[in-house]
């Protein structure tokens, strides 16, 4: 047995040098796949994930179509090279579950009843994984949906918090997720202040849980601010260019 590594140092710094309530460096891009109706890309620490949205479009196979609302189909998938040990490309039990969890986190945010008999197909492809991919997946999936022009109640921002070495920490990385004491992924619809996803793995006291929840909510709100910027950035760049050309 190898000994459990130190996750939080005596100075209160984590393995990647962050403080307890600090997010990983986050980079969001929107509209990077021209074949998809909507797309987004995230780099969050060492995570690198792509999301693509197709639709609303005709449902194939036909019998799956719902008469009252659109069908949201979601596929979360990890590339074989996304982790140290090669991952089999076939969907694992974990991936099937995450697909469902992500779908259920997004369903309340979309006006599905406006487009009966159609399907919205969402693909989340993890290129490099470093913990917290379900949260990052929800975050960019909602950006890709907004980019596709699908009407939504709200964006969905997602972030995890947990406990490692007895300390409550925000935005867990892979080591903290695996070796730590608890992991609480949370997704939030910030304007309606509604929780769209809440899971917990590990052990926390009730008091600790309340604090972790507060940490994660705070993280979601910070991510939400960056989501808005990323969506606007695509169009603001063109606007500035055009206005510069005007002045010349």
């Amino acid at each position: 047995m190898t000994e459990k590594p130190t996750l939080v140092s005596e100075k209160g710094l984590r393995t990647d040098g962050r403080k307890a309530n600090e997010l990983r460096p986050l980079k969001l891009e929107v509209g990077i796949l021209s074949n998809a109706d909507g797309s987004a890309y995230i780099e969050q620490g060492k995570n690198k994930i792509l999301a693509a949205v197709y639709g609303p479009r005709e449902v194939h196979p036909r019998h799956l179509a719902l008469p009252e609302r659109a069908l949201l189909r979601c596929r979360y998938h990890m590339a074989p090279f996304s982790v140290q040990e090669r991952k089999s490309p076939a969907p694992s039990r974990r991936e099937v579950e995450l697909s469902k969890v992500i779908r259920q986190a997004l369903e309340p945010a979309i006006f599905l009843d406006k487009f009966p008999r159609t399907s919205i197909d969402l693909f989340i492809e993890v290129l490099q994984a470093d913990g917290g991919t379900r949260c990052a997946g929800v975050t960019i999936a909602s950006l890709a949906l907004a980019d596709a022009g699908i009407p939504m109640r709200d964006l969905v921002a997602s972030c995890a918090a947990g406990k490692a070495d007895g300390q409550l920490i925000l935005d867990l990385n892979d080591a903290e997720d695996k070796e730590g004491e608890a992991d609480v992924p949370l997704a939030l619809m910030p304007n309606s202040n509604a929780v769209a996803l809440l899971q917990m793995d590990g052990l926390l006291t009730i008091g600790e849980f309340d604090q972790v929840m507060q940490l994660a909510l705070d993280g979601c709100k910070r991510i939400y601010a960056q989501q808005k910027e990323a969506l606007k950035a695509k169009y603001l760049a063109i606007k500035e260019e055009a206005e510069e050309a005007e002045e010349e």
Partner: protein
Amino acid sequence: MPFLLENRQIVTPGDLLAEGDYLSGNNTHRDDSKIYASRLGLVEYKGRRVQVVALNTFYVPAVGDLVVGKIVEANLHGWTVDINSPYTATLKASEALNRPFRPQRDELSEFLDVGDLVLAKVIAYDRTRDPTLTIREPDLGKITNGQIVSVSPAKIPRIIGRKGSMITLLKKETRCSITVGQNGLVAIRGRNQGDEQLAVLAIQKIEQEAHTSGLTDRVSEMIRTERGSVG
């Protein structure tokens, strides 16, 4: 309470646009007295009405719309038509022929075959039924020459312009006949390839810069300089 945001500011889904006695316009939704954005777009306040001009959408059919469609299948009694929408349309033989349709004698692929493009009008559509089209009106029917440009359906109002100002300018400056399908497909027919190419470039510029101001002037300037360089 006054408006919360500046006119024509970019908003994202879920942004609070107004609170109080306002009407919820396009691409917005209401929760009690609060009005939120449902799409990424530019917010517009017009009197009591609050709306969002979307930056990207897909085409949802509406009765009376002019559309450009592509035949994907010829059946016994009509055609299946792709109209660049979540729902595929049907064109009945009786809506295409100028005489009674005789199923035993008439071979439909002789009139319109797979891959043909048609200019058509939506005559029926609701959320329970796929749209049906007609081409039994003047100027409708098979598109035989010219070019098609595909743009996002969200940009169609911008190509037409306020009271048709943009489209009038385009037609005059490029000397092409331009038919705008509400589903984001624009049919262009000119006297020569150069004119058509110019119209294509202009429409692509409008799509790219649809959310900026002073676009009409920039487009007319672009057409003039392009024409100057071609000769």
